[in-house]
């Protein structure tokens, strides 16, 4: 009887043979104790949605956003000083310029070199350095489409690039600064794709939000149809530690993998990922945060696989957190966008200090849902929150309005016809530090346009109307929930076909300079809904500016 030895058998035999090179007697009998410097600090691949992101080395990075953060000491644990680059060192930028697409508070002065062509190549022009960076670091054959020099700083250059196939659509930008006499890459951004404005470094942890805005534009060699099924948005985040960083090259694959939304489940082109707060405080070594959109069946950056060059968008910076953050301010809107201001609130929610209504979220939808669910009594009373539309994305991306349907757990217990849910809008705005906060809410069934709020005396006047015949009540409270004043509850007879109207009379409350929450509820049927006997069938709320006797800090306007 003959035995056929296959090549696979040969491989198997070779592995078995070579494994015997390891002599068990030569190995330590116990794990070694003491502090060790790990070769790589990398968490094993986990199950579930995290799983396939973690293999940044086994998937092609089709679009990427990355930060490399030189971490500060963790507030809870770190006591040793952190070794960081001296921000005042010769050759270090002193520019206060801000590069679009980077996290809030991070300007050029924070950026350590991403790529340095080297002293021997000091004569390279910015476009040449950018080209080498994209080719060597990212694996992209790019075409420089434009070079921009800001009028205020001739040592800064932005090279906008498209793919090497000759497309003229910009895919991203490489930002360079002349330091020590030569051009160095300090950032690569794709602001149309990756929204990193919500990310920040605080207390030794990465916090905030990053998102893919879903405007990926693929090159001809990839093909849009090829990607439709497999890439829909931000695929995940990789938080890594690399002793190589910030000197080039950084290994993008090493890292502690922290989040991996399920791409298939995401289904869309916008997939925000909340960072706050990520894991354990970071060790005082350089860190990298990488957001990648990947296709799971092709090679990784830097591998020999030709598809590895399928990097369409890439964002990367190295941040020195010892540099004080750029003061926010420009992202604070002065007015609600017009189409949001037309909502039947009656009161401009931007009049006073913008405060939360006990709700915040990583994304507009989350903030809106938090608020809506809370308003209707919590999760035990709401069976479904259905986002219907995100509206009002202003050019700055600071405002959004979530139109949604909330289905009560027991529709029959609520006044009016709510079988298909109560519909309304929650207005949210982005905070300076990332995330979203709800600032106002309306219900289709309520009309607050008749309400006036007089900052001169803190009085609420006018009337509230409800399309649904049901009892109405207006409550004024602090944003923390302390009730300051409550209107009478309108009376309602079930046979009354007309709408409910609540005359506020002269609901006056001295707020001692604190902002207050105006809440209007429709439906108040003790004993019918919920544990505390209050059934809220519709809801509207807005934070009003504070008022004080001396008028300090209060806008001198009356709205209504």
């Amino acid at each position: 009887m003959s035995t056929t030895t296959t090549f696979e058998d040969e491989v198997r035999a070779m592995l078995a043979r070579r494994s015997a090179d390891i002599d068990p007697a030569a190995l330590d009998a116990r794990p070694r104790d003491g502090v060790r410097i790990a070769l790589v600090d990398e968490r094993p691949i986990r199950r579930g949605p995290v799983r396939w992101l973690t293999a940044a080395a086994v998937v092609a990075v089709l679009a990427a956003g990355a930060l490399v953060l030189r971490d500060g000491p963790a507030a809870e644990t770190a006591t040793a000083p952190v070794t960081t680059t001296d921000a005042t060192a010769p050759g270090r930028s002193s520019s206060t310029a801000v590069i679009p697409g980077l996290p809030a508070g991070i300007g050029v002065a924070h950026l350590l070199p991403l790529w340095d062509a080297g002293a021997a190549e000091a004569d390279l022009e910015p476009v040449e350095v950018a080209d080498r960076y994209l080719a060597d670091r990212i694996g992209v054959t790019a075409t420089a489409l434009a070079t921009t020099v800001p009028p205020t700083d001739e040592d800064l250059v932005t090279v906008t690039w498209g793919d090497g196939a000759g497309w003229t659509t910009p895919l991203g930008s490489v930002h360079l600064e002349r330091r020590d006499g030569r051009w160095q890459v300090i950032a690569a951004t794709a602001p149309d794709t990756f929204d990193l404005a919500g990310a920040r470094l605080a207390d030794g942890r990465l916090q905030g939000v990053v998102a893919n805005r879903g405007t990926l534009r693929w090159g001809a060699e990839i093909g849009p149809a090829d990607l439709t099924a497999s890439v829909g948005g931000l695929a995940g985040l990789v938080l890594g530690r690399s002793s190589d960083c910030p000197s080039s090259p950084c290994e993008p694959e090493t890292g502690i993998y922290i989040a991996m939304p399920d791409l298939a489940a995401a289904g869309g082109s916008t997939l925000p990922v909340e960072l706050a707060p990520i894991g354990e405080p970071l060790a005082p070594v350089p860190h990298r945060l990488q957001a990648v959109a990947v296709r799971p069946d092709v090679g990784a950056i830097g591998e020999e696989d030709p598809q590895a060059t399928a990097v369409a968008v890439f964002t990367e910076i190295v941040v020195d957190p010892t540099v004080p953050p750029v003061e926010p301010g420009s992202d604070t809107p002065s007015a609600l966008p017009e189409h949001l201001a037309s909502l039947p609130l009656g009161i401009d929610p931007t009049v006073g200090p913008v405060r939360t209504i006990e709700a915040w979220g990583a994304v507009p939808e989350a903030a809106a849902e938090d608020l809506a669910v809370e308003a209707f009594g919590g999760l035990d009373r709401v069976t479904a929150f259905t986002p219907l539309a995100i509206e009002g994305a202003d050019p700055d991306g600071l405002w959004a309005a979530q139109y949604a349907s909330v289905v009560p757990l027991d529709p029959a217990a609520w006044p009016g016809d709510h079988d298909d849910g109560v519909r309304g809008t929650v207005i949210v705005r982005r905070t300076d530090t990332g995330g979203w906060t709800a600032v106002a809410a309306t219900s289709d069934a309520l009309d607050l346009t008749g309400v006036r709020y007089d900052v001169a005396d803190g009085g609420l006047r006018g009337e509230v109307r409800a399309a649904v015949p049901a009892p109405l009540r207006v409550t004024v409270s602090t944003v923390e929930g302390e009730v300051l004043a409550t209107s009478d509850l309108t009376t309602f007879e079930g046979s009354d076909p007309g709408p409910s109207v609540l005359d506020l009379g002269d609901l006056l409350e001295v707020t001692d300079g604190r902002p207050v929450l105006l809440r209007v509820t429709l439906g108040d049927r003790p004993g019918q809904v919920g544990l505390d006997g209050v059934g809220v069938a519709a809801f509207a709320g807005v934070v009003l500016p504070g008022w004080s006797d001396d008028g300090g800090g209060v806008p001198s306007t009356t709205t209504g």
Partner: protein
Amino acid sequence: MVPTELPPADAAWPEALVALYAERRVALVRLAYLLTSDREVAEEVVQDAVLALRPRWDGIADPPAYLRTAVVNRCRSWLRRQRTARAYDPPPAEDPGLGADELWDALATLGDRHRTAIVLRFYEDLPDAAIAEALGCRPATVRTLVRRGLHALRKEIEP
């Protein structure tokens, strides 16, 4: 035979982890060696993986699988770093060729994904799903990696 008699227990180490190390260390070091071709690195990788496991020990559902994946990941990271280092400090242009164990030398020419897939398949005898889990890819991709890896090995040793 793997020694099972352990030195006195260290209070800082969970006994179960020490036992797991004792039971699995030879297999893990051998696995790491097949992935890196470097004895010292293989042992360091396993030690690092065990050390990293210690603070998380209570939260690990399947410690043996976790430890193996940790070792594989660390080996792959080490390989990537080696590749990066070679890119900036390339070896002499003259190709030394394959040694006496040409298949072993050929294994070292594979990329980390292909090499890992080959080792996990033909040494660990893991199914596609387990390899996919370790590599973070789909089972179908594992089959492709194995096929391409074998093809590359065969091509490498062909006269």
